[in-house]
C-alpha cells in the first residue's frame, strides 16, 4: 500500500510562488506523470514529496499519515535523478547493494535482491563493471535499480531519461512501464516531454506556474483539454488555435480564419447561447482534425500548402489561409510540394472551443 496525497500544498522560493495550493491524490500502484514546461513547479513538488524540499504550508500524506515533518531518509520513498548519481568508485553490484548495506541487511539477502533487481533491469552481465564503463542507458538502469532494492513504498523519478538519445528513450519507456507492471510501486514521474507523459502515465498531472491545470488519463487530456494551456502542451505537433468569431449564415455556423470562412454545424450556435458564452472565442483543432483534399469538395475551402514536414508514416503540412497558418496531418506524400492549392475543412467532431480571455474550455462537443 502506498497512497500519496497532497493537501493545499504551497511553497515560495523568495518572491516566486512555485507551488500554489496543490491538491492531488496518487492512488496505490498508480503511475502518475507531472508534466509541464521548465519552471512550472513539477520538480519542486516531486522533491517536496521526497523530503528534499520543505513546504510553506499544507500536508503531504503517505497512506494517510502526514510525512512533511519527516526527514527524506525516513519517508520510505526512493528518488531517481536525471544525472544518475552513482558512486563512480563502486562496481554496479556495490552501487546496488549500498542502500541495503546502509540498513545492515544480511549478506545473502543483499545478494538475492541485487541479483533479482539486476535481472529485472537486464543488467546482470554488468554487475562487476564500474559506472564509467557503462552507457547512459545502463547507468540510468543502475540508478533505477538502486532505488528499487529497498522495495520503497513509492518511487519518484525526475526526468530519468531526459538526457538520453531519442532512440534510447523509446526503449527505456517500454522498460520503465514493464518494470512498473512487475513491481507495482506507486510512481510519480516528472517530465517536460508530453510524448513520455502520454506513453507512460495512468494519469497525467499538467502543471503551469505552480498551478495544477488538469489531472486526467492520457485520453482525457488529449481529447478534452481543460484549457488552452493543456490543449497546446499535449499533442505534437501543437494544436492549431485561432481567436475567431462565430457567425450565422444560411442556417449554419461559420467561423472566420483570416478572410476565409469554415462551416460548422448549426448546433454550435445553440450551445454557445445555452452556456451564455461569447461568440468571440478561441477555436482549437489538432492537425488530424484539419481534413485535406486535393479536389474541391462541399464545405472545403481553398488553401495553399506551405511547409511540408515528413515524419515517415505521415506528413504535417502548414496550410496558408490568408495570413494565418492551419497545420494539418496527411498521409505521407499526399501533397507533393509546397505551393500547391488544396482544400481544407475543420472536422466538427475534433473542434475545441475556449474562452479567449480565461482560456478555459467551453466544454462544447459537436457531432460530425
Amino acid at each position, binding site marked *: 500500500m502506498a497512497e500519496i496525497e497532497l493537501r493545499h500544498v504551497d511553497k515560495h522560493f523568495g518572491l516566486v510562488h512555485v507551488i500554489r495550493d496543490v491538491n492531488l491524490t496518487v492512488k496505490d500502484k498508480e503511475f502518475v506523470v507531472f508534466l509541464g514546461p521548465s519552471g512550472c513547479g513539477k520538480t519542486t513538488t516531486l522533491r517536496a514529496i521526497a523530503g528534499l524540499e520543505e513546504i510553506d504550508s499544507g500536508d503531504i500524506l503517505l497512506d494517510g499519515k502526514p510525512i512533511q515533518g519527516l526527514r527524506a531518509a525516513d519517508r520510505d520513498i526512493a528518488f531517481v535523478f536525471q544525472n544518475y548519481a552513482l558512486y563512480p568508485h563502486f562496481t554496479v553490484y556495490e552501487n546496488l547493494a549500498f542502500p541495503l548495506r546502509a540498513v545492515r541487511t544480511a549478506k545473502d539477502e543483499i545478494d538475492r535482491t541485487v541479483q533479482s533487481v539486476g535481472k529485472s533491469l537486464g543488467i546482470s552481465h554488468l554487475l562487476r563493471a564500474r559506472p564509467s564503463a557503462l552507457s547512459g542507458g545502463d547507468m540510468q538502469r543502475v540508478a533505477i535499480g538502486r532505488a528499487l532494492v529497498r522495495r520503497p513504498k513509492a518511487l519518484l523519478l525526475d526526468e530519468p531519461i531526459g538526457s538520453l538519445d531519442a532512440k534510447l528513450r523509446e526503449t527505456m519507456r517500454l522498460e520503465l*512501464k514493464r518494470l512498473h507492471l512487475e513491481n507495482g510501486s506507486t510512481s510519480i514521474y516528472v517530465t517536460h516531454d508530453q*510524448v513520455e507523459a502520454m*506513453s507512460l502515465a495512468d494519469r497525467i498531472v499538467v502543471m503551469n506556474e505552480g498551478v495544477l491545470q488538469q489531472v486526467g488519463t492520457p485520453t482525457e487530456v488529449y481529447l478534452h483539454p481543460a484549457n488552452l494551456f493543456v490543449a497546446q502542451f499535449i499533442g505534437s505537433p*501543437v494544436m492549431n488555435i485561432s481567436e475567431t468569431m462565430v457567425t450565422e449564415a444560411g442556417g449554419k455556423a461559420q467561423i472566420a480564419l483570416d478572410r476565409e470562412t469554415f462551416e460548422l454545424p448549426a448546433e454550435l450556435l445553440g450551445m454557445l447561447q445555452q452556456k451564455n458564452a461569447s461568440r468571440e472565442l478561441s477555436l482549437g483543432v489538432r492537425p488530424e482534425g484539419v481534413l485535406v483534399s486535393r479536389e474541391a469538395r462541399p464545405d472545403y475551402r481553398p488553401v495553399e500548402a506551405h511547409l511540408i514536414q515528413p515524419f*515517415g508514416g505521415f506528413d504535417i503540412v502548414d496550410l496558408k489561409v490568408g495570413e494565418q497558418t492551419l497545420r494539418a496531418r496527411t498521409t505521407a506524400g499526399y501533397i507533393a510540394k509546397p505551393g500547391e492549392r488544396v482544400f481544407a475543412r475543420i472536422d466538427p467532431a475534433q473542434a475545441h472551443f475556449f474562452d479567449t480571455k480565461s482560456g478555459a474550455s467551453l466544454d462544447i462537443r459537436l457531432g460530425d
Partner: protein
Amino acid sequence: MARIRLENLSKKFVNHTAVEDLDLDIADGEFFVLLGPTGAGKTTTLRMIAGLEKPTIGRIYINENDVNEWGPAERDVALVLQQYSLYPRLSVRDNLKFPLQSRVRNLSAQEIDKRIEYASQTLRIGHLLDRKTDRLSGGEMQRVSIGRAIVREPQVFLMDEPLSALDAKLRESLRSELKNLQRRLGATFIFVTHDQVEAMTMGDRIGILNKGRLVQVGTPSHVYKNPRDTFVASFVGSPAINLLAGQASGGKAVMTPQSFELPLGNAPVAGDGAYTFGIRPEDVRVEAGAPVEAKVHDIENHGIEKILTLRAGSILVRAGVPARVQVKVEDPIRFGWDPSKVIVFDRDTGANLGAGN
C-alpha cells in the same frame, strides 16, 4: 551561394578514427542534415567544414575552392552550437552587433543597423533587442545565437544540435521556424542532430553517419522507405521499425525462435534461408481473423494513435492502431502484416536486399 563538397575526408585522433572516407556533395541552398548517434562523427565533420579541425586525409571544397588551408574566418561560414555562446553582460542588440564590428568587415553603422533590423525581424526578437541576454529564456537565447549568425550573412550556416537543449515544445516550434528561415535566406544549411524527427522534418536530404562512416544519403521519404541497412531502418522512424529474425520458407517468413509465420508476397528474398524481416509499426495489421495470435505487452498512448507492443512467443512486435482501439495489457490479440511493405535484410551484413537503393 555555396556548394560544399567533401572528398575522401578522414579524421583520425590518437587512438580512434572519428570520420572515415567521407564523400559528400551538398548543393547551394540545400538544407542538409547529418544524422547519427553519439560518436558517429557528425560534429567532427561539421568542425572540419568550419575549419576548426584539420582533416587527416581528404579535401573540402566550398564553391570548388579547396579551403583546406583556409582559416575559419576566411571560409565565411557561421557556426551555431547547442550551448548559446552569447555575451551575458551585453544586450541582445550588442550581441548581434559584435560580430559586425570587426575591422576586417569595415561595415558602416547604417549597414550594421540594417542587418540587425533584418535578423531581429526574421527571428521575431525585435522586442528583446535592449534586454540583457541573461534575462532571456532558452528559446530566446537560441534565436539570438542564430541571429548572430544571420547578421554576418555567411555563405553557409553550420548548426550543431542547436535545438537539443530546449524543451520539447520549443524544439517543435523552432523546427518549422528554422526551416522557414532557411527557405527565406536561400542559404546552405548543414544541420547536425541525433534526433531523427529533426532530420526528417527539416532536411531536403539526410546523410546518416554511423561509426565515422556515411551509410546513406537521400531525401527523408526515400531513406524512410528504402533504408540501406538495418542500422538506417531502425534509426529513422519513430516508433522504430520491427526487425524480426527469421527464415524464408516456401513464400513465408518463419520467425526464429519459431513462433509465427507470415506471407512474404513479392518480397525480394533470394531463395529460402535466414533473413531479417523489417516491418514498420504502421504496416502491422491488428484485426480479428489475422493470422498470428499474440498478447498485448505494452500500450503507449500517442493521442492520435496507440502504439501497441505485441508479444508472440518471445518476440515483440510494435503496431500502430487508431486511438479508439480499447485494449488492456495481456489481452489476447491477433495481427498480420502488409507483405508489400516488408523490407528484407541480409541476416549477416544487415544490407537491404530490395531493389532500387
